[in-house]
């Protein structure tokens, strides 16, 4: 499964578990408007580390704060490959 699909699937899963409603997932979606809150994203990043084997936010020396879902996916795509 692609990195993008894995992220989308995990987002749906976390949203379901946290009782949140996700906005339609597309690249220009602003993360803050996605429906997941800080805790939701923290859980998502921890889960993605398990499934993708990388936490690009902690692994990188540079601070990365993606604003959109497209940016977020790119951070992982760059981290995995």
């Amino acid at each position, binding site marked *: 499964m692609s990195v993008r699909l894995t992220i989308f699937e995990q987002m749906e899963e976390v949203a379901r578990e946290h009782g949140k409603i996700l906005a339609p997932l597309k690249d220009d979606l602003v993360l*803050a408007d996605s429906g997941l809150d*800080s*805790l939701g994203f923290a*859980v998502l*990043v921890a*889960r993605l580390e398990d499934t993708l084997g990388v936490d690009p*936010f*902690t692994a990188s020396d540079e601070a990365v*704060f993606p*604003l959109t879902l497209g940016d977020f996916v790119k951070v992982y795509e760059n981290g995995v490959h």
Partner: protein
Amino acid sequence: MASIDAHSLREHLANAPQAAFFFDNAADVAFTALDRGTSLSGRLGALAGRSVLVATASQLTAALALIELDGCARRITILPPDADPDHLPALIAAAEIDAVVLDDDSIKHVALDLPVRVICAPSIVTLEQTPPARVHTEWVMLTSGTTGVPKMVVHDLGGLTAAIVAKSAADGAAVWGTFYDIRRYGGLQIFLRAVLGRASLVLSSAGEAVTDHLARLARHGVTHLSGTPSHWRRVLMRPAIRSIAPRYVRLSGEIADQPVLDALRAVFPHANIGHAYASTEAGVAFDVNDGLAGFPAAFVGRARDGVEMRVVDGALQIRSGRTASRYVGPAAPALAGDDGFVDTGDIVERRGERYHFVGRRGGIINVGGLKVHPEEVEAVINRHPLVRMSLVRPKSSPITGAIAVAEVVLKSDRNGHEAQHIEVRDEILKLCRETLPRHKIPAAISFVPGLAVAATGKLARRQG
């Protein structure tokens, strides 16, 4: 400290600039209005000399009540917004509370049988009588992060404002903002900085969205803005952060790591960015303004600005005139050691010429400012019939600082079946969701063959 503070908070507001206001999303109150007016429906006199609980729903009314009660009430106990109502009877008994200040919103929720109930509102009326005779007011704050009834920590205005006087924060042109609630120690410092500096303060309202709060901060031209690293990480993910341009950015309440400091530097290249170390018990110990995580090793071992620090068994200990004086209650434990040092329980590690915070001695996991006791979560996981034992530990998170994850040992002959692992994991998560608040639910669960047990017979916990 029995001496009367030089000025009560109300006296600090005398001759405040016309432009200085407290703002929230529903009201604004001019500092000058409070000089000769009251927010307490004309009943300030009824609170004179009493032990008063400030239990308002809004930060704005709490701010107004604190200004009026300082120098008037014998004792002020500040109720944080997340206080457990079940703890109120114990708190009221311990602090001998005999009066309460409520506002229109909290009156619906706080049912207290106290001799005096006064409503605080942002509509200021003329203070008819002269303020009651000045008394030395005890300020009582509640600790966070303990299970059971919070500890009640006694300060006075002199100690609470010592770090501010030392830094001479007076700056009439400043506009302060805080993401940190002013009813907690870190937020109260910002409230006091605004009052002593006679500078406006933009407060958030209960339930207000971050983007709305940011928009108001931008509209009021915030110059000095404070929050925990988690608050800032949350704000850094909002495009609206570009709408504000503070000159001073402050972090406190959690460990400020290098990525969050760097990210703030990138967004606010010209701001003075500082992180402060303070706790409800130990008071403000120091500010670090060089943009680097941790603090210079030279801070330890000698007095700086009246603050002495030492490291004992890895934990930071602090002695200064800014520490709290004691806990409330006859049976309360001593707050400081015999030599006056307060043990913070914060574990530090020296790396080169700098100390870094590595976690809490007690092993409490701090998820974005919310505390998780690992044992509490383990107890829930261990209720699953197939679970032998479990360990909940912190995992660093770029978003909330830390998050709880669990390692689970299944009962023998259940290990190694992938399909069953998924099923058990889902059942454990369901169990957690049924009994725990969201921040305490493990973000990830892994299955391990065994867990180390220390010589004490307790689960070996790696320091977070």
